[in-house]
């Protein structure tokens, strides 16, 4: 079985090949290079995600326009009609993989976050306007995927969006100050509203089962209270040995009042010395095994 014969993967994904355009710097092979996208009908309880195709491995810098063009080409070829609405969850560079804003805020409800969709990298959802559209497209894709084996020449050639030199240097351009001001202004407004809302929610009395009203102080966000809670999350202290804090009682107690305390302490010291000695011997053994004692190496 060659690659050409594979039109559907075991788990139901249709293989969608594209021919790739030549590039002056790339050596030209005998056969045209192909890109393979994988598609499957998406099933989800989420109403937002109905009529979607689940796509894996989209070509570089794909956007909705590319998809529209492709579906148009496809429908044209197989004489059918299908309309694409939008491309969801396409995060090619993983910039939105982590939503720091949500994670750093107490205000945005965490319940939300659990429901939030996490699509794997290199995948996207292609949303069609209706049921018919997706079915038409699906059927056309099935036919198209068979082309690879029989008429490879008829495969569509993918056209990349190629960023120009200017695209790259534009990253260095200064931000427009008016835009920046406006952006900050609107954002801060929204934030303040949200803040006020949240404050209100907390302050409004929460009555629990027993009929008691939970009272929340205004100062829940003092830095110290937060700090205590999350300080153990610091990855820098991950590998530190945590020392037990000395309690006040221990601090005051005399350690050398009774004779037995002195004796105990000395015993302990000797045991420490001994264990350290044993440890050292072990270390030497390991070092010896690693030939750490050769002055001529």
């Amino acid at each position: 079985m060659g690659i050409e014969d594979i039109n559907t993967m075991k788990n139901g994904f249709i293989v969608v090949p594209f021919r790739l355009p030549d590039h002056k710097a790339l050596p030209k092979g005998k056969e045209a290079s192909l890109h393979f996208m994988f598609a499957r009908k998406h099933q989800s309880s989420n109403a937002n995600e109905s009529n979607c195709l689940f796509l894996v491995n989209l070509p570089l810098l794909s956007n909705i326009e590319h998809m529209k063009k492709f579906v148009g080409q496809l429908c044209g070829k197989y004489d059918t009609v299908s309309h694409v609405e939008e491309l969801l969850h396409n995060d090619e560079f993983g910039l939105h993989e982590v939503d720091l804003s949500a994670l750093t805020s107490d205000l945005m409800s965490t319940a939300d976050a659990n429901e939030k969709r996490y699509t794997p990298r290199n995948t996207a959802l292609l949303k069609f306007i209706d049921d018919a559209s997706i079915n038409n497209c699906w059927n056309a894709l099935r036919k198209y995927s068979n082309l690879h084996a029989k008429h490879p020449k008829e495969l569509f050639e993918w056209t990349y969006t190629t960023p120009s030199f200017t695209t790259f240097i534009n990253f260095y351009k200064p931000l427009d100050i008016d835009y920046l001001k406006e952006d900050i202004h609107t954002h801060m407004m929204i934030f303040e509203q949200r803040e006020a809302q949240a404050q209100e929610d907390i302050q409004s009395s929460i009555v629990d089962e027993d009929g008691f009203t939970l009272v929340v102080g205004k100062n829940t966000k003092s830095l110290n209270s937060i700090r205590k809670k999350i300080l153990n999350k610091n990855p820098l202290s991950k590998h530190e040995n945590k020392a037990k804090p000395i309690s006040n009682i221990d601090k005051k107690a005399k350690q050398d009042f009774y004779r037995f305390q002195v004796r105990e302490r000395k015993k302990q010291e000797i045991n420490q010395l001994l264990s350290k000695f044993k440890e050292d011997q072990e270390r030497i053994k390991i070092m010896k095994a690693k030939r750490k004692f050769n002055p001529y190496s």
Partner: protein
Amino acid sequence: MATSVKRKASDPNIAEGHKKRSTQASTTDRAPEEDNHNDPVTNEPVVPEQGNGDENDASDDRDITVKNTTSRRNGRATATESHDIHIARETAELFKSNIFKLQIDELLEQVKLKEKHVLKVEKFLHKLYDILQEIPEWEEKTLAEVDSFFKNKTVSVPFVDPKPVPQTTNYKFNYKKPDISLIGSFALKAGIYQPNGSSIDTLLTMPSELFEKKDFLNFRCLHKRSVYLAYLTHHLSISLKKHKLDSFLQIEYSYFDNDPLLPILRIFCSKPTSDSPSEYNFYKTRFSINLVVGFPYKVFEPKKLLPNRNCIRIAQESKEVSLPATPLYNFSVLSSTTHENYLKYLYKTKKQTESFIEATVLGRLWLQQRGFSSKMSHSGSLGGFGTFEFTVLMAALLNGGGVNSNKILLHGFSSYQLFKGVIKYLATMDLCHDGHLQFHSDAENSSSSLASKYINEGFQTPTLFDKSTKVNILTKMTVSSYQILKEYAGETLKMLNNVVQDQFSNIFLTNVSGFDNLKYDLCYDIQLPLGNYNDLEASLASTFGSMERVKYITLENFLVHKITNIARYALGDRIKFVQVEMVGQKSNFPITKRKVYSNIGGNHFNFDFLRLKLSVNPAECEKLVTKGPAHSETMSTEAAVFKNFWGIKSSLRRFKDGSITHCCVWSTSSSEPIISSIVDFVLQKHISKKAQVSNNITKQFHNFLPLPNLPSSASTSVLNLSSFFNLKKSFDDLYKIVFQMKLPLSVKSILPVGSAFRYTSLCQPVPFAYSDPDFFQDVILEFETSPKWPDEITSLEKAKTAFLLKIQEDLTTNRPTYKSFFTRDESIPYNLEIVTLNILTPEGYGFKFRVLTERDEILYLRAIANARNELKPELEKTFLKFTAKYLASVRHTRNLENISHSYQFYSPVVRLFKKWLDTHLLLGHISDELAELIAIKPFVDHAPYLIPGSVENGFLKVLKFISQWNWKDDPLILDLVKSDDDMENSLETSIGAGSELDSKMMKKLSERLTLSQYKGIQMNFANLRNSDPNGSHLQFFVASKNDPSGILYSSGIPLPIATRLTALAKVAVNLLQTHGLNQQTIDLLFTPGLKDYDFVIDLRTPVGLKSSCGILSATEFKNITNDQAPSQFPEDLNDLSEKMDPTYQLVKYLNLKYKNSLILSSRKYIGVNGGEKGDRNVITGLIKPLFKGPHKFRVNLDCNIVPVDDDNVVLNKEAIFHEIAAFGNDMVVKFETD
């Protein structure tokens, strides 16, 4: 001799037995009266650090031990345990620490001679003894008769220069049976295994009847010895044939310890050819045997051979001039009479001192690793202080040594204490200029009158004087050799006193002298015009007359002495010490030859070329003026000497303080240290006009540093930091402006954190060179604390930007000369809202302001707490990035800036290292801070080497360190403090000069890591490795006080990149060690190996960025600044982007897209490494090993794939290449795949 060999062979058994009995009791049995000898007034003897416990305590402890052990009656385990406790206690007192003792034990075990080998060679020694006995005695012969005897023989008489002539030689030569005995380490059983083999010294003492009273004069006894040796050699070679030993035994002449007055016969074996070699073939043992011909003890009056006597009488024109002293000759004659005496002396001391041999072995290793030996140092190389001198010194110190003859060492000392005592003595007592040590080698009983004594009177030559034999043991040592020894002893003493780090391997295991360019800062090869002897002779002959000949014996000695003196005088305090080596010097020659080289033919020297090796004093090396004596009406002798020495270079100058002084003025250069020009000048002037001094290595390394487009940058020293200071000055102005602004929250601090503030940016700051990636220097702005900062990151960033907008507004209205704009900052992953304010100063520098609030850290931590588990690692990385950029950067910058003033060469070295990293495409993966920390290792933790004093030395040490760093097992723990000397100086000045600081005070003020801090860091490392034993997640653990976690700057480096760094350093060091430093090898160091990658993409940008990065091209006239370089900022700040590097953005996005399957590398500094115009870059790709094979098809595979069957997929390389090509579009000029 047979008996003597046997007698000595039986000794070790006795010693062994003695040792076994006494190991357990060695300290407790220390005689109390010996303790009383410790005189604290001078040179307190080595006191064990931990051993200052209270007496009562100690006895109490012992009780407990006993109780402890007796409670668990008679169990076997108990017995060993108590034994262990005993050893543990004892070693803590006697040695630096337990682990140190165990390490010493292990090391001694490691270097022990193999018993089998000793037996083998002893068997031959017995045979040799018999053969030597067979040699027939001779009749008295005249020189003419001797000549005719050897005329048809293969053996030549190894006469020393000057060869005697029959006409004037009226004494007789003879051979009578010698007295044979073993001497040296082998006889003392102090020999150790050495991979290159060691020699056994056998002494043949000529009978006294062969000498007359005055034979010590004018080489007479030496010539007699030469004939004696030749006769012996002649008969020995016949006997060897007779006994059928000649098939594998080889004999040749050699000079004992390189002393040209002392020819000896060397016997060694060739590799056995048959499978069943002769029973006498000791080839495998790697021993060789030296037959040393000695004179009977006290055959000549020792007083007449004192170092200040003349024993070579030469004809002289006027009787008034007294003949010069002949110390080298005298020593050679006198020490030939004392071999056996010293053997006895050392043997006696060994018997009295249990750990004597062990300490000797430690001393031998220590000396060897530093390149010291007993060889003559007068003909170059380190020498004059080998194991013999070490042991004699140790013996002398066991019998006194203080100014009041107080004992420095005690017989009961452990090997560590003995060793440390000798090192301390060497480090702290001057035996050359301020004083000397005298001792008695034949003291029968240690009565106080015969005790060793330090005398406060120096002879300007290293002196360890034996009152009994009148020998100065250190005669073979030159002053410069002694200075180096003293320096190393000082360094070692510091290591021995270091209780924080384990210095064992630095002291004993690391070979410091393996590679000249690591040991010394600058090396110059001096080619003398050897072919034209006469030319050189003409210039030398005037100075090397008969007077000098009797003093220095050989022309080589004279030359070395002269060059050393010239270098010392000319360079003064620019250097710490100087050493001259004769490369290609030989000391062995065939028995058919009279001496090691012939007078006939072109080469008249016993060397190929000279190498001048310097250790630089970084603080003084680049000063412009060599100051001489003050000017006076009548020329002082000093001034005359100065003028005469410098010739045309000397001039009179008036200084700011009004003084007029003779001096020489030098000019700095970006490609050469001043020392190079001085060395060049003085050697040409004083040695030979045709002397070729070459040091292209330094030049080549210097030229690798990008030359800034600044006025007269070509004549600016690499140590000159003025370009950085200009930037700082511009910042200070801006700082004041911002501080005075009226803002809703007042400014708390403005902290510079950019690399130029700590002098480590690859390119020096050049005004308006805004294409340089380091042009915008990071600055962190903090406002006074406020509870009102938003409690959510995006809003927080927006709020920060609002403040920056206010600053910008203020600046635009009130300071029109300043320009400013905002850009988005991507340094913290996933935080897309950071905006920085970039300010361009009228001086042409750029600063990038970012705001830090007290809430940031909390928010990032909260994100970790709130995140799903699978996201946590990403968020932890984000937190580390934030900490590195905003918090630790402040400490890092402040710390490095502060200490780099103490390590002058750090700045150029770290910049060269960064260039190297970028050449090899690694700088994109390794943060600036990590590179800086790695590069500072050879400075702050320089042991066992010295602090680098040149660019190449520092750079090579960085490479050497990386090549040897086993990061899997070893953390890099850096103590980021100034060098000790600088610390002491600064303390002295701050507290008041002359105030005496006791050690406790020093310790308190010291910012060094304490033991507990150090242990804590080590513990962090151990814990880290517990979870990641192979270092596949984090390779480089680099910790300091600023970052005890050790992971801040090094997490997130891909494993292949880390291993590549190590591999590249290994290859580089290997290359240099096998082929040496030369133009090709250095060029190779900076040539990237692109073959190792899976694909390589050549990029070219439309605009070259070299000149706009502020770098001068090599082709341009270096004294004219480049016109193309921008001299102002564009009117429209949007135009700035036209001269920015687009490849950086391309690579950034490619990395984001393919981070799961590929590792992409490229150059960060396109202006430096991007070809002549700075318009070229490459992207190299490595496919992660995981993606080289097929995978089951899953939707979360996150890579571009092609199906292989209906279940499996592989990486679609073709498609990826097309994508990359399409992405890079016009910039991609070549795409290489395999």
